[in-house]
């Protein structure tokens, strides 16, 4: 239940009451800085600052954060290793030609490139996780409307958001009922039971859709959906922190421009 976990963390995080625009500005500017940087130190610095913010200011549990971080990190690490092996370079430390058309090597240049890309991924990931963990979806709907996304898209998104949790709950209940009656005991049974789970989930969602329309009708639905606007003021301290972060981050990126590991 990954989505639920992420959203639940976001709903209860320590920076929940900070103005959404400030948080978004911090995350997005970090993302842009990571993409602009050509040295490895800038993104690493940004990752460090944002991780500290998530762990200390937003008071996200360390284990949760580490788990969220590790999944994409493994992926990034493997990609970086592949880049190191195939990108070649002028100062090779090690070359191996297993096949006539394939040459694997580790060189100074390739290590620099791989490490730089890995750092960039870490920096960008921190920025995205910062947004995901501090800004719940419900606040993003407000931003979406401000950004001029058509109303029907937002309304749909909101209904989907609401329904996901309801459906997930239903599926979990059906699944539990199946497991209790040994539904997944063998390979054949598993397939059979899973098909029943899908069928039951479909019927449940159909039913829920019917009820949704009825519930909306009963409250005079007329194509309008309220949104609770952003009423949390931009406070001085978060704003100062944001400005300081952008200035120091830009400096770090500027100073480390072109910086290589080897």
């Amino acid at each position, binding site marked *: 239940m990954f989505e639920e976990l992420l959203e639940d963390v976001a709903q209860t995080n320590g920076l929940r009451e900070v103005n959404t625009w400030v948080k978004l500005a911090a995350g997005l500017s970090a993302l842009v800085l990571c993409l602009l940087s050509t040295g490895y130190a800038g993104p690493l610095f940004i990752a460090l600052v944002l991780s500290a913010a998530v762990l200390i200011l937003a008071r996200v549990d360390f284990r949760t954060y580490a788990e969220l971080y590790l999944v994409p990190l493994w992926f990034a690490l493997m990609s970086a290793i592949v880049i190191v092996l195939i990108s070649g370079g002028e100062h090779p430390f090690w070359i191996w030609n297993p096949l006539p058309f394939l040459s694997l090597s580790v060189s100074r240049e390739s290590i620099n490139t791989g490490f730089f890309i890995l750092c960039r991924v870490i920096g960008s990931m921190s920025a995205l996780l910062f947004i995901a963990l501090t800004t719940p979806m419900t606040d993003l709907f407000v931003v979406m409307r401000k950004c001029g996304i058509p109303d029907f898209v937002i309304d749909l998104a909101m209904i989907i958001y609401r329904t996901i949790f309801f459906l997930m709950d239903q599926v979990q209940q059906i699944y539990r009922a199946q497991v209790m009656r040994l539904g997944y005991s063998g390979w054949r049974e598993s397939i059979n039971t899973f098909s029943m789970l899908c069928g039951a989930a479909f019927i449940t969602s159909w039913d829920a859709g019917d009820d949704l329309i009825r519930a909306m*009708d009963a409250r005079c639905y007329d194509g309008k959906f309220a949104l609770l606007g952003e009423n949390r003021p931009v406070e001085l301290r978060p704003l100062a922190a944001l400005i300081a972060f952008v200035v120091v981050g830009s400096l770090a990126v500027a100073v480390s421009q072109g910086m290589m590991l080897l």
Partner: protein
Amino acid sequence: MSHIVLEARDVRYRYPRGREAICGISFHFRRGEKIALVGPNGAGKSTLLQMFNGMIRPDSGMMLFDNVPVQYDTASLRQLRKRVGFVLQNPDRQIIAPTVYQDVAFGPTNLGYDEAAVKEAVATALRHVGLVGFERRPPHQLSGGEKKRVAIAGVLAMDPDVLVFDEPTSGLDPSGSEDLMELLDELNQEGKTIVISTHDVELAYPWAERAILLADGRIIREDVPDVAFGNPKYVRMAHLSVPTLLELSSELGKRGFAIPERKPRSVLDMVHIIESHLHGSCSHAAPGTITVCNVDEAETSAIPPWVKARPGIVVGAMGTRAKQCAAQEQIALEFTYGVIDKCILRALRGQDSLILTTGSMVGRVAARVEAYCKESGNTISVAGLDPANQPPPQGR
């Protein structure tokens, strides 16, 4: 007699390719009444309820709102649905929006209120159900009782005259159910007509002013609860059971206890019957005093010292806001439901009590105590809370 707000004249309804769900039902609700539709599963309760706000159109017969036949065009239905609020059995199915604020604001927004009016309506509704501060919470993080309250707030925000609840206490724990029934009483005190459907006779019996027993799409009996539930024949026909209090009183009656004309509706009534049988009367040497405090008006910070100065006093809270106030001032509550009756019971044993309550409920305390005193011949005094008041001398 106040005027009729909702009326059905020989309505019939058959589900497509199904059996007849409603077979010729006629009734009327008066403004400000508390009505319970009681019947077993599949009796047609939900179908009937959905006719009240035009979700289901009867095949024949007529529904009237405010003595005007219900029209089924879009504009009239909107008008009807604004005035008849409907709370579904499963709040998960009723809550549409991703946050509490948005869900409660759904009705007012669609009624075309401007933003300030929507905010105002939402704030009022949330205060009513005691969910102030929940605006930004997503519904899936709330407990069952809280979800139910959100669903009710969503309907309240449209300020309907009639509130229809389908199985209001299903899925709630006993204390949640009691809280909810009290919220219904509070709304009724403000002049709203309340209709609930239930198969819980113990719940409906003390609460309702009128009970309608349904079975197989027909009305079996429509009367005040002690008559409707008191006849084992009707109760059996409706697949229900006789409420414990009624059964007990009829058994006591057969054993020579004097059962008054008005059947016991509460433990208090029952105690009165038993005590007057045992002692000949039920006069008590020195009944305690019931103090009433309106938390909307009183200086709430003065309550804890007032309570502290009177050791042994019991405190009860009626209504959501009173309970919140008690939590805020850290006052330990002895009673949170059925408060007036319980305080009268304590008073009869010579104990003093304090009732925290709000606005319209203050008058209700006095009225209930007065009615009881008149009936039983006791005298229990009801006083307003005056923080400046010195505590009474100890060892009374």
